[in-house]
């Protein structure tokens, strides 16, 4: 149903209405960079990549985002730091950049 698209490196990426990738397997580092500006991330630093790469790796294994607490523990960043890196938060910011679907339910 995608009326929303983002073109990255000449590839059309279908998005949902919140701007999340419809197909997480279409993700690439260029996608993260392309999403960054929309989520208030001015420049992708090593710290940003640490979070994004961890989310990506965990997602490929578990088909779901990690617990917020696990993300903090594995990256060594507390929640406040995650919000500093990704102003729209771990779910809407970091997960979106990593090409994960938006977590749903009572979250």
């Amino acid at each position, binding site marked *: 149903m995608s009326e929303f698209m983002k073109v990255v490196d000449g590839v059309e990426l279908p*998005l949902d*209405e919140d701007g999340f990738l419809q197909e997480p397997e279409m993700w690439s580092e260029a996608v993260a960079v392309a999403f960054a500006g*929309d989520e208030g991330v001015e420049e992708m630093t090593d710290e940003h990549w640490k979070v994004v790469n961890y989310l990506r790796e965990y997602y490929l294994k*578990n*088909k*779901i*985002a990690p*617990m917020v607490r696990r993300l903090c523990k594995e990256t060594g960043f507390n*929640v406040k730091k995650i919000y500093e890196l990704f102003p729209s938060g771990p779910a809407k910011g970091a997960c979106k950049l990593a090409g994960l679907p938006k977590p749903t339910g*009572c979250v």
Partner: protein
Amino acid sequence: MAEDPTPTREELSRVEYAPPAKTWMDTGVDIPNRRGNWCYASDAKHPEYLGQPNAHDWAPQNEDWNLPENWQRIILDGMKERLEKYRSFRLFMDICVRCGACADKCHFYLGTGDPKNMPVLRAELLRSVYKRYFTKAGRMFGKLAGARDLTIDVLKEWYYYFYQCTECRRCSVFCPYGIDTADVTMIGRELLNLVGINIGWIMEPAANCYRTGNHLGVRPNTFKDNLDFAAEDLEDITGVHVDVPIDRKGAEVLVVVPSADYFANPHYFTFLGYLALFHEIGLDYTFSPFATEGGNFGLFLSHDMMKRLNAKIYFEARRLGVKWILGAECGHMWRVLHQYMDTMNGPADFLETPKSPVTGTVFTNAKATSTVHITEFTADLIRHDKLDLDKSRNDHLKVTFHDSCNPARAVGLLDEPRYIMKKVLNNFIEMPENTIREQTFCCGGGSGLGSDENMEARMRGGLPRANAVKYVKDEYGVNTLACICAIDKAVLPPLIDYWVGGVEVAGIHEFVGNALMMKGQNERLTDLRNEPIPHLQKREAEEEVKSDA
């Protein structure tokens, strides 16, 4: 992609209560211009997965909703079927005398000033169609008798207003006839779903839940992984090694929690609290790898979906051979369990009347469902002096309590949470009495409306609750808002940040876990959030200075 359309606090606090000049029957809703107040449609793949009728792609802002050709017939047949099936529905359609007692009790009316958010008028959107097609007076006299044709504009109003009611039932407390407006909203949503009109924030969790047992879509291996991680984390904080049993046949108790408890903040700290408590009292329990969700977004869609998603709880209780079920800090789960589970998924004659293995208390109130709420269970432990508690570990918190709608109004859990808090912390302050207990104000994001694209509606609907929080913050320095519902824990933080600021949201078992003295514990200088407990750290520092001298 929508930009965040949420207006500023100043703009939102100017609520216009003057009704429009035209009558309610002639005023439709301009959906494209009300962005921020409605939720996105579901991608058709979710209702298709759930086998829902007429699943199709559509968008609220579009003129054409791609409805099936005979959509009116489908809705009217559906209405007829439900009038015959649910006596309550027919009663609520017939009985209202429009006294208006409910009008200003709805948080959405208070926050929007939109007359169609008065519960009486929201119900009238459905009632007018009922009158037109199912009553003699309506058929003969039409508008004069309050009857309306079922047009596309009426259907659009249903979508807009039935997804701007959180089924919190505050209005029902004040209705002299006891009309349950949440029931009316539920039927309204069921009818919309018959023609494929439903929202993504409900359908995706429901589909996930049907597939994996929980709204997030956490699979059993990941669930186990999360439990193990939490156990390690708890050991890091307390120094106590805790086993977390899963899929253990023959355990006495099955514990069911909302999935957000093992995923999101601040829910997770409450989850650590449960684990610490169960370990300390030596509870013979197990988690199920499939009944991994207390919540039930089916409740927000249709009776049938609620029943299907809830079936796993008894199924797993039987498979695991437990004696009874302990349900955690989950909100609408308790409306489903308390009000429907016995007749919907029961009888659970393979279970026993719950009995606390620690105190011997028999929970006869839970005889029908064999399911006990965790605040009842913990309050009983404390009442019998079975827990060693150090209240001062919560001295950095000044706490007020938001009664979550469903545990309060659907189950009557009003005193147990308060009893626990008074025993595990020193600073408890109530919000004004017309905003708590049976009269509690909704968080603004319940019943599947906790999405982001409707943030304006959430902030408006949550205004009365936020206002009461602001009062106790300004008057008494409250810094923590407690609640016993996972939706609350998700949607109250942005609400409070928007209107109030400087107040954290927490669950009751987080306080219990903070205060709990555990055998073999380390020097506890941090709380379950791993944040330093200021006065304990200060005391420790002073003692060090003393011993150095």
